[in-house]
């Protein structure tokens, strides 16, 4: 059914890997810990507790905004967002409303077919995470360990129109966030969470549809495409039956591959935002912003372009840059083999030489496989003839059956070629020459 064009906007949450929580110096290391043991008065929303913001979390949130080409609000603040849910101890979440740290950014998605898609980033702001609920029979159990962990929320404009782009964007965002070393951005662990907002419209329609459905509970990259595609199909079917999909939140169920209604919002939630009075506002100095920008590493897309200018193929450059430590390893190796950047890249991408044994081991093994850019065969054959002529006895030895002499002769040729020959080629050509009947050896 190609009657409709999907309209997809993303809301992505990234859990920052700070040592302490967003609004208190309670430990933020809560994964796998005994319930309600990684808490403090602020985390639990105890009477009298007050929030004090985490500087590193703020710097990292701004860094993420910069990586997405956002404008930075040097005047900013936190706001209270009110709603009731058992995993939210204060009855409000400290978040950002009208003055987020970053806004109006963009990201250029370079597709495999070479086309590009610009994704507008609406905002990147900072807030605190909630606790966790576990259902146990008739009870719901609450664990507040995760409450207060810093969370960066990235919101895109509804610029996506297909699930492949969404998946690619998400994967590349994960790489960027890991490059910045601010989060392990792991969907299965919950340190990166996706909530797409989906609707469909007629082709050519410019206005955003008058409804949208939010999808929660997509817990892995594997399900991103399936969940979105399912939902798009569901909307198209409904609209085909002259029904408008209900504006609601739906949960993805991985086993069945479907989405089900979670909360129908009869009235839009009124969050009654107001500025957080317990946290003074921010007027960041130029120095503060400048220092954050200075700490930005070379981002993946820039690195890809640079690797390509070194001769690496687009495909290999992409693969090498998925993990910053691999990219860094590659660069070090490439430095050891000038003019061999493309080949080194290939060795790593094809896993011909492992990179987990350290740089020295890698280089040792690479040398054995690497082809020089040119093994000049004319010079090589001349050199081989010279070596054979100068080493009559060893040659005779070899011809009499002493195989081991061959490697000596190879070594002599390699030496004479001064590294401008590949060992394998030398051996082949040398054998060829040695097997030639003496009478046909000609000297110029």
């Amino acid at each position, binding site marked *: 059914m190609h009657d409709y064009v999907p309209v997809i906007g993303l809301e992505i949450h990234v859990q920052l890997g*700070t*040592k*302490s929580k967003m609004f*208190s*110096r*309670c*430990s933020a290391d809560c994964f796998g810990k*005994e*319930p*309600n*043991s*990684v*808490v*403090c*008065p*602020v985390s*639990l929303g105890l009477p009298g507790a007050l929030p*004090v*913001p*985490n*500087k*590193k*979390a*703020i710097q990292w949130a701004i860094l993420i905004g910069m990586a997405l080409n956002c404008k930075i609000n040097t005047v900013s*603040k936190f706001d209270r967002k*009110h709603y*009731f*849910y*058992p995993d939210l101890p204060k*009855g409000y979440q400290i978040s950002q409303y009208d003055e987020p740290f970053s806004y109006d950014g963009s990201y250029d998605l370079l597709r495999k077919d070479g086309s590009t898609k610009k994704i507008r980033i609406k905002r990147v702001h900072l807030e605190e995470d909630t606790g966790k*609920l*576990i*259902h*146990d*029979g*008739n*009870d*719901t*159990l*609450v*664990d*507040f360990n995760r409450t207060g962990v810093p969370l960066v929320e990235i919101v895109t404009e509804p610029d996506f129109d297909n699930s492949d782009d969404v998946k690619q964007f998400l994967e590349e965002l994960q790489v960027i966030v890991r490059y910045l070393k601010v989060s392990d951005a792991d969907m299965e662990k919950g340190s990166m969470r996706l909530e797409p907002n989906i609707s469909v419209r007629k082709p050519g329609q410019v206005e955003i549809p008058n409804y949208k459905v939010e999808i929660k509970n997509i817990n892995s990259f594997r399900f991103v495409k399936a969940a979105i595609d399912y939902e798009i199909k569901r909307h198209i079917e409904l609209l085909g039956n002259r029904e408008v999909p209900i504006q609601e939140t739906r949960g993805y169920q991985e086993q069945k591959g479907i989405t089900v209604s979670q909360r129908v919002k009869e*009235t839009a939630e*009124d969050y*009654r935002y*107001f*500025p957080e*009075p317990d*946290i*003074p*506002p*921010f*007027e*960041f100095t130029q120095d*503060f912003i400048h220092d954050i920008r200075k700490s930005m590493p070379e981002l993946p897309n820039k690195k890809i372009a640079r690797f390509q200018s070194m001769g690496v193929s687009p495909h290999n450059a992409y693969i090498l840059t998925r993990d910053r430590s691999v990219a860094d390893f590659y660069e070090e190796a490439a430095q050891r083999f000038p003019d061999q950047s493309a080949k080194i890249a290939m060795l790593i991408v094809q896993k011909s030489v492992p990179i987990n044994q350290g740089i020295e081991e890698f280089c040792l093994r690479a040398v054995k496989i690497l082809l020089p850019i040119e093994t000049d065969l004319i010079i090589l054959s001349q050199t081989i003839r010279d070596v054979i002529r100068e080493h009559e006895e060893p040659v005779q030895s070899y011809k009499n059956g002493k195989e081991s002499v061959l490697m000596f002769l190879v070594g002599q040729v390699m030496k004479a070629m001064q590294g401008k020959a590949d060992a394998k080629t030398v051996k082949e050509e040398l054998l060829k020459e040695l097997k030639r009947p003496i009478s046909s050896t000609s000297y110029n």
Partner: protein
Amino acid sequence: MSHLTPDDIQKLAQLSNLELTSDDIKDLPQQLAKSLDYVENLKDIQTDNVPASHFTTSAKNVMAEDIVDESIMLTSSTALKNASNKKGSYFIVKRIL
């Protein structure tokens, strides 16, 4: 001039997670109307180009270093000490559907 109807009160109660008695719902509109009438006097004051005062402190850029303070952390038994409903190390709420 805004006056709250019992319906408004009910909606606000829902937003506020409050269960009001039928007496509350009957009485509150009138009680709150008096407050709302009084604050109309703010209309006397011209505020067109006036900034809103959201913070009484003149402090700015207050941020703490990312260092864990063990002394503020609570054990799970302390955390649960004042709870009337608990199960193991968890707090309990009525099942959320």
